[in-house]
């Protein structure tokens, strides 16, 4: 009897010591296993948002001319690199200051990123992710905002001016404006809602794009004698690949904005996201078919993005049918918007303003119309739209304006005509010369010693 009892007791102790740690509730009702799962999903989401930079790079390269491709890629490379660094230096702590020092408008938690031990436990964010994951995920968003501007100013912006603009925009404007909602500022207190950044990321980027495109002026040859001359993109496969990469990235952009791996919320959000993207594509296809007589591929691609931007404000809080409606409306208005901006002679090579600004505003207002949460109101959403419009557009105008009168923001006419690849980077992205490149590949390796050469500057003089 005693042995049986001892064996049972031993069994219970052994079983308990194996099972109990798994059952142990750490803090906030999250087990260590759930904490790991949440964090893994959030890190994956950060990687997916990073893929959007690959998408932007290829999309912009595809919709612009081959003579400017190196320049476009260089700008995209710079933005993500500088964006992550400045976000670590100051952006993260401007966006999430903890305490606000100027009303609920401005706060700064200090330079640099660092955390105590608690930052890497479930205590940090209700078990959703660690401090480091939080930083990285948000850093990817910051860089996305700046890269929206690069498409609208492509093919004529001066590289150095653009680099300065984007540093200031990512380091200061984006995080300060973002703190008003995601950092717990005044708009958050008002009940304004932006799930994953239709306003905070896309419309802010869109306002910057509008300011840049407007102050820069159109590309040479775009509007001649009252006529709008299209400047077709150089590589449609790249454009399509870019858009699909962006769609893939949105799985992380919206899926990760749940801020945990919550099965119901993440899976539902991904569905509304994909429904809106699909609806946007179809709507744009048929709108462009009706408007132009032929279905336009670049418009269909813009339609996908329009739907994605449109659903981004409310992907977790609108219904299935609503997500489709949001996508359809976004797809239709993006086509109209592209035509509109061309009519008022704002030259936007990739449609960034129409996709990100116009559909970002639509997505934000759509929350007020379609949200299943009774606390969301159209009025408050509109207040947010106006507030961000005034400050994002205003700051972008100010930065570009100062740069315009000091160092200039546009390349010279000669540089624009010969292509920014040669003018700003001294080399082509593609073998544009054709047959003569055979000659270049044979002679280029020979040393220039003793042979007279002219510099690009001399040739252009």
């Amino acid at each position, binding site marked *: 009897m005693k042995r049986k009892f001892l064996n049972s007791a031993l069994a219970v102790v052994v079983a308990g010591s194996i099972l109990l740690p798994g059952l142990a509730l750490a803090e906030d009702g999250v087990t260590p296993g759930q904490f790991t799962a949440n964090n893994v999903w959030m890190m994956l989401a950060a990687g997916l948002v990073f893929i959007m930079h690959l998408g932007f790079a290829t999309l912009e390269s595809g919709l612009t001319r081959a003579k400017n491709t190196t320049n476009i890629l260089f700008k995209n490379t710079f933005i993500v690199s500088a964006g992550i660094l400045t976000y670590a230096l100051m952006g993260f702590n401007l966006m999430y200051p903890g305490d606000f020092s100027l009303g609920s408008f401005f706060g700064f938690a200090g330079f640099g990123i660092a955390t105590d031990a608690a930052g890497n436990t479930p205590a940090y964010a209700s078990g959703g992710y660690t401090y480091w994951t939080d930083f990285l995920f948000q850093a990817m968003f910051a860089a996305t905002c700046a890269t929206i501007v690069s498409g609208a100013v492509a093919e004529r912006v001066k590289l150095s001016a653009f680099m300065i603009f984007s540093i200031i925009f990512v380091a200061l404007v984006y995080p300060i404006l973002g703190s008003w909602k995601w950092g717990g500022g005044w708009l958050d207190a008002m009940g304004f809602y932006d799930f994953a950044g239709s306003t905070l990321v896309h419309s802010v980027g869109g306002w910057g794009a509008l300011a840049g495109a407007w102050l820069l002026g159109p590309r040479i040859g775009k509007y001649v004698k009252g006529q*709008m*001359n*299209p400047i*077709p993109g150089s590589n449609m496969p790249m454009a399509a690949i870019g858009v699909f990469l962006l769609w893939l990235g949105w799985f992380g952009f919206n899926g990760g904005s749940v801020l945990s791996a919550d099965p119901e919320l993440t899976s539902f959000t991904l569905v509304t996201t994909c429904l809106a993207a699909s609806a946007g594509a179809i709507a744009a296809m048929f709108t*462009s078919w009706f*408007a*132009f*007589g*032929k279905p*336009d591929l*670049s*418009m269909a691609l813009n339609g996908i993005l329009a739907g994605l931007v449109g659903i981004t404000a409310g992907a977790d809080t609108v219904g299935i049918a609503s997500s489709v409606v949001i996508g359809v409306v976004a797809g239709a208005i993006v*086509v109209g918007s*592209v*035509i509109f901006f*061309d009519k008022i002679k704002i030259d936007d090579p990739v*449609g960034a303003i129409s996709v990100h600004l116009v559909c970002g505003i639509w997505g934000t207002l759509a929350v007020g119309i379609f949200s299943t949460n009774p606390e969301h109101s159209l009025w408050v959403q509109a207040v947010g739209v106006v507030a961000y419009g005034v400050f994002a557009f205003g700051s972008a105008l100010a930065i570009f304006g100062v740069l315009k009168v000091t160092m200039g923001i546009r390349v010279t006419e000669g540089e624009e005509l010969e292509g920014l690849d040669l003018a700003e980077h001294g080399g082509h992205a593609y073998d544009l010369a054709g047959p003569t490149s055979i000659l270049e590949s044979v002679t280029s390796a020979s040393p220039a010693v003793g042979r007279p050469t002219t510099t690009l500057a001399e040739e252009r003089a």
Partner: protein
Amino acid sequence: MKKIEAIIKPFKLDDVKNALGEIGVEGMTVSEVRGFGRQRGHTEMYRGAEYVVEFHPKVKIELVVTDDQAEKVTRAVCDAAGTNKIGDGKIFVFSVVDAIRIRTGERGDAALA
């Protein structure tokens, strides 16, 4: 010797090459060019705006043949490259001063054989 320059529609290149091979002409040089004659440009559409593309892609075939071959060659090209529509192209015939085979130094008709 005569130089024959034929500007034809690109998709006709294979037919012309085969037709020339049948009459014993094996060598030619081909380049991609753009041009127009009476063939008007066509309208394309991009993002809601129409634009006219005036220069059509064409293929230029250049070959140098002996004087007695010239008439056969031009007739063969016309038959093979024609589609009875505007834009079929044109053939130009030039006199050649000399021809040299680089490998052997042969000149004149011997260089063409």
